[in-house]
């Protein structure tokens, strides 16, 4: 079986949004199982700093719909509050961990800083969208998450909701090399968290799907894992709402449409 990518350093992008905090929880959970180091990264967005006091910039409140000029003090204060909240959440989450963890603050453009930091990580976790879950999603996938998935060669876990405990992990297996790595990583995660692994084997026709399913099972079986598997369409795979869907990078395009948390494995 193809070896799973190593999992020694976990990077989690933090911006105080509910999904970034869910990502932090998932990161500490995975890190604890794998004995990995956790790095929390907070980026002070240079664009936001520039907005303050900008003679041309305008701002509009999402809550009240009120128009006003960006206020330097309010923005700075809001950013400070965010940073303090994130720092506290990180300390709380990583406090019980035995292994090392660190919290980094960078200034610059968020995507760029994240991608730079991702280069040293074995797994990157980002929130699927920066806005609160209760708000109507303005876009299906946040621009940061999209940029990170597109820009890094590391596995990226995009959080769409908190990771529910004791629910199966699903993996999409399409026979590609990335799919084998995805299968290996998913098997490791399932074994570490003690949940069932569901293998979804999409194919053009039922016979091919069954063959692919058999191939995937053969790869997993030596690990003595509880495995469920079935041939399915991709749309079905997403609607099943597993705790986590592991996708090979070849199926990355599904990410936009899927409502569940997704781990993209290159």
């Amino acid at each position, binding site marked *: 079986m193809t070896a799973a990518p190593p999992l020694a350093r976990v990077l989690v992008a933090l911006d105080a949004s509910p999904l970034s905090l869910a990502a932090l929880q998932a990161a500490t959970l995975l890190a604890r199982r794998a004995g990995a180091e956790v790095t929390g990264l907070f980026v002070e967005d*240079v*664009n*936001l700093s*520039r*907005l303050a*006091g*900008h*003679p*041309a*910039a*305008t*701002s*509009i*409140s*999402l*809550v009240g*719909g009120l*128009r006003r000029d*960006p206020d330097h003090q*309010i*923005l700075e204060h*809001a*950013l400070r*509050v*965010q940073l303090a909240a994130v720092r506290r959440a990180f300390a709380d989450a990583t406090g019980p961990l035995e292994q090392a963890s660190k919290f980094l603050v960078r200034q610059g*453009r968020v995507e760029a800083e994240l991608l730079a930091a991702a280069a040293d990580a074995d797994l990157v976790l980002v929130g699927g969208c*920066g*806005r609160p879950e209760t708000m*109507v*999603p*303005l*876009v*299906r996938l946040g621009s940061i998450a999209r940029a990170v998935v597109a820009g890094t060669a590391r596995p990226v876990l995009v959080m769409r909701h908190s990771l529910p405990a004791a629910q199966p992990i699903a993996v999409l297996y399409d026979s590609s090399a990335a799919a084998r790595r995805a299968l290996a990583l998913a098997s490791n995660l399932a074994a570490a968290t003690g949940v069932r692994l569901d293998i979804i084997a999409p194919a053009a026709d039922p016979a091919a799907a069954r063959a692919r399913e058999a191939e995937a099972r053969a790869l997993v079986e030596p690990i003595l894992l509880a495995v469920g598997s079935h041939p399915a369409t991709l749309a079905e795979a997403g*609607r099943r709402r597993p705790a986590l869907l592991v996708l090979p990078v070849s199926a990355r395009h599904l990410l936009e449409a899927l409502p569940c948390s997704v781990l993209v494995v290159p």
Partner: protein
Amino acid sequence: MLPSPLTADQLYRRCDAAALPFASTAELAPADGPLGQDRAVAAVRFAIGMRSSGYNLYALGPVGTGKLALVRQFLAQAAAEQPVPDDWCYVNNFAEPHRPKALRLPAGQAQAFRKEMEHLVEELAAALPAAFEGEEYRTRRQVIEEQWKERHEAAFGEVQKRAAEHSVALIRTPVGLALAPVRDGEVLSPDEFGKLPEDEQHRYKAVMAELQEQLEHTLKALPQWERQQREQIRQLDREVAAWVIGHVMEEMFNRHDRLPQVKEYLEAVRADAVETVDEFLKPPAEDEKLPLRARRILSEGGQFRRYKVNVVVDRDAQSGAPVIYEDHPTQANLVGRVEHIAQFGALVTDFNLIKAGALHRANGGYLILDARKLLTQPFAYEELKRTLRAHEIRIESPYQSLGLNSTVSLEPEPIPMDLKIVLVGEPMLYYLLSHHDPDFPVLFKVAADFDYRMERSEDTVVGFARLVARVVSQEKLKPFGRSAVARLVEHAARLAGDAEKLTTHVASIVDLVRESDYWAGQDGVVQVEAPHVQQAVDAQVYRSDRVREHIQEEIARGTILIDTAGAVVGQINALAVWQLGRFTFGKPSRITCRVRMGKGEVVDIEREVQLGGPLHSKGVLILSSYLSSKFGLDRPLSLSASLVFEQSYGGVDGDSASSTELYALLSALAEVPIHQNLAVTGSVNQYGQVQAIGGVNEKIEGFFDVCCARGLTGEQGVLIPAANIRHLMLRPDVVDACAAGRFHVWPVETIEQGIELLTGVPAGATDDKGEFPPGSVFRKVAARLGSFARKARAVSAAEEGKNGK
């Protein structure tokens, strides 16, 4: 002419055992009805037959006359032929939950309906999630969500696109969205912006103003879009839910097609389930933060309590109309109540906690209540009357009725009522209610008046024997031989206080039957005979007569002064009756009288010290009147007399000693001694006629016991009113003594007879000149009164002479 002492036959009317048409009760069919209560039976039958409003029944009679048993028996017979009334349930009122609805179902169907509803909820809890998990629903919902997501994206995408075209970025900040000029993905710093040509700056500002306008427009539309999306999803949910629920409930609707009320309720259930379908899709609330107990309370009865059916009246397996006896008729036990349970320190309730009352259970039949218990329960009687007037059972706590309850409670829909109330109680309560409560005669039009006695005839004696047979049969006692029955009959006459009557106090007879059986058992015989009955009577007396014995003992020892020999002026033996519990006995008392010159007044010392009751005072006033009319027609009565019950330390009432007091007064005036071997009872009227009194048997026996203790001389005896002869049912030992001439009972009709018997001196009747014969008692009285009058006149003249100086 003086009366002769009564013969043994007159003192005790025997029941001839040999004349009884059976050898033992084993030969008799047990009595199947009441004894000697024809009037009451007719009233009960009438009340049962009258279905009109207000024909409720009050069964009145002394305790122990078998009222309750009779009423129950007749009601049970009538109810058995009447139809079983409907079942009743309370269900949720979905429109107004604080006013639960009452549902009527044919008898025996309520429990089945309750189970049907439970099953329905289970079915819905399974079918609805399945439908909402289904491919079709999910796809349709996803389509709606996608449509709205696309609409959002299109709207914001348009802004973003236009912004990008003009090198403007739409940036999310912690305090909202911002628009700013960018270059290569980065916001231009204020300095960089300042360095731009002025035209460029103006262009940026103009574009951003326009974009902001567009953004605002989009943001304003957002809440409405969200509402529309939610409404579309809700509509879809309703559509799916209505289809599933309709399908699941179809069978129920068909089954209850003929019950419009039930159908209406099922419609409400269907509408509610459609509106609240989300609850069927969510797992039950399991908040880990709540304490275990709280979670248990919350989940009690499931999250679908509102679909439960609270069966308050279940007639399953019943036959005929109900006959209910409510032993504890509190207001709540009658009309039902709404219970509460404590949840997190607050008392909460719902229609499931409505409890039925006796009126619910008896609806369509009969409810028997003890009048005294009903009247002693706060609010119960008033509530019962209100219910009877309104013909509906309304569950309302007294606090609600009085407007004292400020917490939210339920107002269950009233249930129509059609039942007959039977109150069982003492006559006094009946008379008081009739007199003081104007509603009572309107609501309780029928009185079943239970007699405490019945005629003693051959028929009633046989009926009495059958009653004994019934007790023997019901309680598996030994059969009663004819001698035992005869003795029971005699005792029943004694209990009735009348040789020509029998008591209808069934409880006393039944007790005596049981106890006789016990003594027969002690004897080891298989049939109860007269000696066993006598033993039971004696044992009853022995158990109760401690006080009587003490009094007799003190008389014998001379502590209580009663003479039974010799003769004394102005002193006489009177007879009183004491009742201690259910035991009555006679107690001899000494009455004395002293006279002197005075102003014509007879002083009743008992009354002066307020120990005499009004009847006693009346008796004394009557004897004063007798004296005045007999001796004071032509001159003023110039005497002063004092009458006293010696050694009396409690109250005295009744007029049965008035003749006795008159004899003492006459003796004192005439200075003729009264024989102390005699005792007297009887009241007197203004003409000197001696009238009947109560407790004659006990009184005679009381004096007999005193005499007996000192030795019967053959001279002793009691004077009783002649009208009391028919009441005599004396103890065998008294009868035997009289038969042997060792004791006597004289029936007296007039004072003249009595005074002659007591003094041995004729009373005397006036001749043509209005004078009493010489040597007669009345002559001496007249002479004494004349002497008082003369002395009074002399004193008066002397006083006047003194005053004249």
